[in-house]
């Protein structure tokens, strides 16, 4: 079947996006084709600005419009505490909780020798410099609870041993709101291994 070239091109580009398959890409492209040109322009603008205006914060590597991100610039935040995360999406997840009032540090991944990711391809050196230069008192490690995340936490802990800073790791265990009886066996098993004394 022959499809007009511009449409085909749009479908091809859209289907490169994560979790968008051929059918969804086609539906999106046809929807855009039917939309008012103002809406389409707004979308194009938004996408263009996303790329041209946003960069990475020079301090914490979160996404930012300015050289330093809003969190790093805010005077209301506690500048003596850093929460270390894997990706920008983790910053968004933690920010949504409103529970953390310190600063972040985005590593850009975790140690993964199989994928050829070693410590120097992560922002670990930058983290150490930050701690030394800005009088950081506490570091909270909030990496994913798998083999790679845990090992990266261990690695950072070792690196920071000689620096006068308090290090902790976020707890793991049962999800809130879910009853014990509904949690999956693996989660309950792990929660038992990682039990804490009262």
């Amino acid at each position: 079947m022959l499809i007009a070239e511009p449409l085909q091109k749009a479908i091809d580009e859209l289907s490169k996006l994560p979790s968008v398959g051929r059918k969804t890409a086609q539906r999106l492209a046809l929807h855009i084709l039917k939309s008012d040109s103002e809406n389409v322009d707004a979308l194009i603008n938004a996408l263009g600005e996303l790329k041209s205006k946003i960069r990475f914060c020079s301090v914490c590597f979160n996404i930012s419009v300015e050289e330093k991100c809003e969190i790093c610039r805010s005077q209301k935040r506690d500048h003596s505490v850093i929460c270390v995360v894997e990706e920008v999406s983790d910053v968004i997840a933690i920010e949504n909780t409103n529970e953390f009032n310190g600063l972040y540090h985005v590593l850009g991944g975790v140690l993964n020798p199989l994928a050829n990711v070693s410590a120097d391809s992560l922002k670990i050196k930058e983290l150490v410099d930050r701690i030394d230069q800005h009088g950081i008192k506490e570091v909270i490690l909030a990496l994913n609870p798998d083999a790679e995340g845990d090992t990266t936490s261990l690695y950072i802990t070792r690196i920071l041993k000689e620096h006068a800073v308090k290090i902790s790791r976020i707890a793991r265990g049962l999800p809130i709101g879910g009853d014990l009886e509904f949690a999956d066996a693996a989660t309950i098993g792990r929660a038992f291994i990682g039990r804490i004394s009262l």
Partner: protein
Amino acid sequence: MVLKQIELQNFRLHKNTSLDFSDKLNLIVGGNGQGKTSILEAIYYLCTTKNLNMSAEEDAVTFGESNFSIGGLFNELTENKARLYYDSIKNKKYFFLDEKQINRSTEVIGKFPIVSLIQSDHAITQGAPSERRRFVDSVASQASRTYLELLLDYSKTLRQRSSLLSQIKETRNNVLFEQLDAWTESLITSGTEIINRRIKFVQEFNVYVKEAYSSVVELIEKPHIEYQTLAEIDGENTAEKFREELNAFRDDELRRGINLVGPHRDDFIFYINGMELKRFGSQGQHKTFQIALRFAQFFFIKEKLGKTPIFLMDDVFGELDTYRAGKISEYLLQIGQAFITMTDLTNKDGLNITSDNTLIKVENGKTTFAN
């Protein structure tokens, strides 16, 4: 738990076979290559979605067809309909439980527990240590999901660490040492948990093996399984000893670029009356030990899960003398539902066949009920 009936379509020699089973012994009798084992294979598929003999799914499709289907009716407290459909063109399996599609095979594992005594079991007592680790891990994982997750975690850490070791070997980059230490810590954490669980498992399982073994032989033979892991471990000091051992092998590991210390190198040594089975055991003792291991697995799983597994036995009677065949069939009475293949009925007299049992004759994929 009982499998009441099964329906096979295009499964090996079975174009269209439908069988009602007894909830006691089901004897499946027929010559070689007539389709006896296929029935056991189909039962195993229904219980686990996996195959019994490591053969490929597409080989199980009847020649000239493009799919097979296995349907069954389980009965425990309620009736459950299970169905497995395999499409050889897409090379895809579909599993349905009570008409609802199940997408993750881990959701099925443990729901219909099954224990199988098959020909390839000889590797457990006679083969490499990896065969024994596989046996222990499969029994322990059937009983504990947490153990299974720990194994997956540990093997991931092993792969990462060996990749890093070989990078260090190639690049001689000293910066990587600190990262190696971190991976070593991870290895110690999950490895220690696995070792401690294996220590406990072997302690418990030994009781079941002794019981099963004494029910199969008349001699006063005492079987024993010894867990062979890092030296001088007593369950309290595992992490400490693990770390010491890793330190001792550090240079070797770096030179060779592989993981040399940990539970992935464990072995389980089988003894009869204090003599090592692998070195001194007769063929008969090996066979008896294999049988005892599977019966022990049966009662262990039954105890742990509170569900009675289905028991499969593929062509074992042909190799046994009348005495042991009789002993085993006595023992089988304590088991719930069992499926047993045999080429002929010479050992039948020892087999306590009663009206509760079903005798199925298989010839070239066609089945008939004999009683």
